[in-house]
């Protein structure tokens, strides 16, 4: 018989070991599904690996894929630190995409366009995140529900836009007009899709880490998240901290949309995000809400996504496996987190 016993302290190496443990468990659990689909487990995983991280082109593709998830992962990590339950990164991403697309379509010098796209996209994401935060602060509305449901509102607003005023009059497809060529983010390595936004994401992670760990705002976010009563008594304006957190979180998620418009799609369509906002939750949890951890966690999920497509082509296992892996990874991580507070102890059976 086994039993959980409370831990008095958590060793530091757990921070690294737990996500790896969770990923390992995920791959083992999902191998059953691969076998069920009639493919060799080792073969499938090796195709997945080589297609996502096996050569330099694959690595750049994975990084491009990881970029929006770094932004949404940071958005969720910051929000969850304050216990502002922002499940709305998806909608904030879409809002950021729409706003940056609208700005990018205006003719102006390239660098200015990119700057304004980032500002507009970030502001749009922040504005969307402000809604659930305000509802919570003013009316005590549950932010999980309001931020989640808002995703649908934003999505259908986007659909109305691209089916209506933005509809491509030439082809009749529900896609927005493209942004100006000069507003396209520069490609950093010839022959790949590695764009400026990838660098922005890689810079954003340490920046957000700095904000959380080394600024008074970050201190207030952490304290508010862990104990709002102590924060309030300690002179912290808890409501203001929640609003600031929401603005920061929403802006980051909005930037995910900016990167997709400026660096990958150059326009807005209904499937501009295959759920990057929701993947951000998985990323943030795998990273244990540490902004620096968000980068490897996002790269892992991106590798799974790009790898799953190649694996599907090579072995016939449906590419949906990538979503199963994501979900399993989240569950595995939540279970792994249990070990930070408890350990397993073997006990003899009761007589």
């Amino acid at each position: 018989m086994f039993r959980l016993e409370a831990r008095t302290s958590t060793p530091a190496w757990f921070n690294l070991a737990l996500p790896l443990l969770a990923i390992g468990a995920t791959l083992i659990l999902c191998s059953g599904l691969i076998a069920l689909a009639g493919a060799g487990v080792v073969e499938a995983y090796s195709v997945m690996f080589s297609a996502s991280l096996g050569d330099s082109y694959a690595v750049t593709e994975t990084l491009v894929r990881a970029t929006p998830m770094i932004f949404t992962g940071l958005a969720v990590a910051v929000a969850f630190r304050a216990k502002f339950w922002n499940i709305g990164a998806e909608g904030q991403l879409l809002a950021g995409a729409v706003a940056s697309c609208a700005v990018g379509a205006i003719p102006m010098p390239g660098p200015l366009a990119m700057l304004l796209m980032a500002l507009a996209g970030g502001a749009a994401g922040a504005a969307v995140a402000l809604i659930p935060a305000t509802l919570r602060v003013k009316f005590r509305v549950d932010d999980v529900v309001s931020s989640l449901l808002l995703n649908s509102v934003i999505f259908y607003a986007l659909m109305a836009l691209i089916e209506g005023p933005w509809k491509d009059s030439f082809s009749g497809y529900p896609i927005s007009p493209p942004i100006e060529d000069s507003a396209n983010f520069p490609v950093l390595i010839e022959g790949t899709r590695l764009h400026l936004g990838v660098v922005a994401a890689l810079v954003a992670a340490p920046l957000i880490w700095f904000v959380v760990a080394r600024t008074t705002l970050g201190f207030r976010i952490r304290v508010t998240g862990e104990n709002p009563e102590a924060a309030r008594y300690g002179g912290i304006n808890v409501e203001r901290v929640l609003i600031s957190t929401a603005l920061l979180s929403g802006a980051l998620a909005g930037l995910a949309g900016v990167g997709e418009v400026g660096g990958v799609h150059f326009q807005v369509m209904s499937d501009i995000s295959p759920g990057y906002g929701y993947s951000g939750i998985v990323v943030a949890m795998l990273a244990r809400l540490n902004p620096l951890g968000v980068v490897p966690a996002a790269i892992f999920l991106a590798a799974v996504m790009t790898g799953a497509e190649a694996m599907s082509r090579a072995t016939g296992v449906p590419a949906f496996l990538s979503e199963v892996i994501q979900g399993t990874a989240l569950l595995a991580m939540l279970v792994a987190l249990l070990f930070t507070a408890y350990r397993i102890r073997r006990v003899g059976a009761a007589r």
Partner: protein
Amino acid sequence: MSTPAPLIEMRGISKSFGAVKANEAVDLSVAPGEILGLLGENGAGKTTLMNVLFGAYAPDAGEILVQGRPLAINSSADALAAGIGMVHQHFHLAPRLSVLENLLIGIPGRSGRIDRAGGVARLAEIGRQHGLTLDPDLPVSALSVGEQQRLEIVKALFRGARLLILDEPTAVLAPTEIDGLFSALRSMAAQGLGIIFISHKLNEVRALTHRCVVLRHGRVAGRVDAPASTTSSEMARLMCGHEIVPPARGPSMPGAAVLTLDGISTSHHSGMALRDVSLSVRGGEILGIAGVSGNGQRALAEVISGVRAPDAGKMTIAGKAVSRFSPSTVQALGLGRIPEDRMTTGLVTNLPLADSMVLPRIGTAAFSRNGLLKPDAIRAFAEAQIKAYDIRCPGPMTRAGALSGGNLQKALLARELAFDPKVLIVSQPTRGLDIGAARFIHEKFLDMRAKGCGIIVIGEDLEELLMLSDRIAVMYEGRIVGTLDSADASVARLGLMMTGAEA
């Protein structure tokens, strides 16, 4: 008393957490009808020992005998089946469910149905036997703390406990409730139940128990066979390993008023409101606020701390009127605060201790500039305070929640006193602390008083208030019903005023 076969016997129990030996070769037994006191400082291993008995921890060595037969207790279910019931310090109740529903949790009914009528009958019977009456249909959230504790006791009896463990049961109770608890416990013992009573409060242990076991550093430091005729100082010596001398009080030299409240009233937001409260505390003076819990003390502490703005009245700190009520403004005027509830309004248990120690002053130049933290200054501050106050912990980056109550209280004291407050507001300063830690806290208050700080101590422990205070004001139903000089006050007189009688 004679010694029939023990209900329960623990032999040679050892339990370690890493390098820490929480229990080492502890022997303990309880006979039917016996009330055993389990005494010890915080961290002496009382709670660990009881958790072993209740099945929460597996001991590293030793065995437990229930009515003479060895038994492995691996879970609380095993413990309950063996007739062991435990009333934890923090209650394990479902607040939205009724009293009856809480009683029936985990009890299989007849063919999947809850035996409501049977439950009501048992509840009434237990109530009659021991004076522990409860309304079966009230939701737990509507019960007072004392009633919730009563429900925990009834729950244990309901499940057929023959041995009842109570972990610091009086820490949460008002004096009148303590009397009720004691008479119920005596009635249970008279009917053959065994009781283990864990407490720091020596006078309670002496009044209630038949026999005591004293733990120190995880070992049995001594056994007391006749607590009633053993002096408190003798027991304190066993607990601490040395004599405890009450701190010396210097002469009273009050200066100018550092805190005044003039006609403060609040609305009925939560709990008892304040009604036209006026008081003043001078520098170098300790003002005690006595009263049965729930008579406005909380609102008073909230107003003074700046957490709640009064509807009417004026407050000054160090001669300056408080124009805006917020924790940061009153703090900037020179107010320090030691909260009643360390865990909820004082500290952030999941973050490093250093974070909690700088929390109220994070925005000041000492710990940040232009919105950027000064991590070295924060760390150095925490390290210096840990040293100065002898806070036992591995270092400033330790999770605050890993510290014992006494060390947390020292940390809170350190964070306020380091900034030389002109006024200090303190609620229940030594609740749940052991003798050594309490004495340390008292000494610090008296030091601050000698330095000219004005201190306002809100408390229910009248002996503590009498020992510390220069003057004592009594609160009743949101008003101050009278203020006495300590020299004129006594427990009896204060107790009378606390019920609303005129001074």
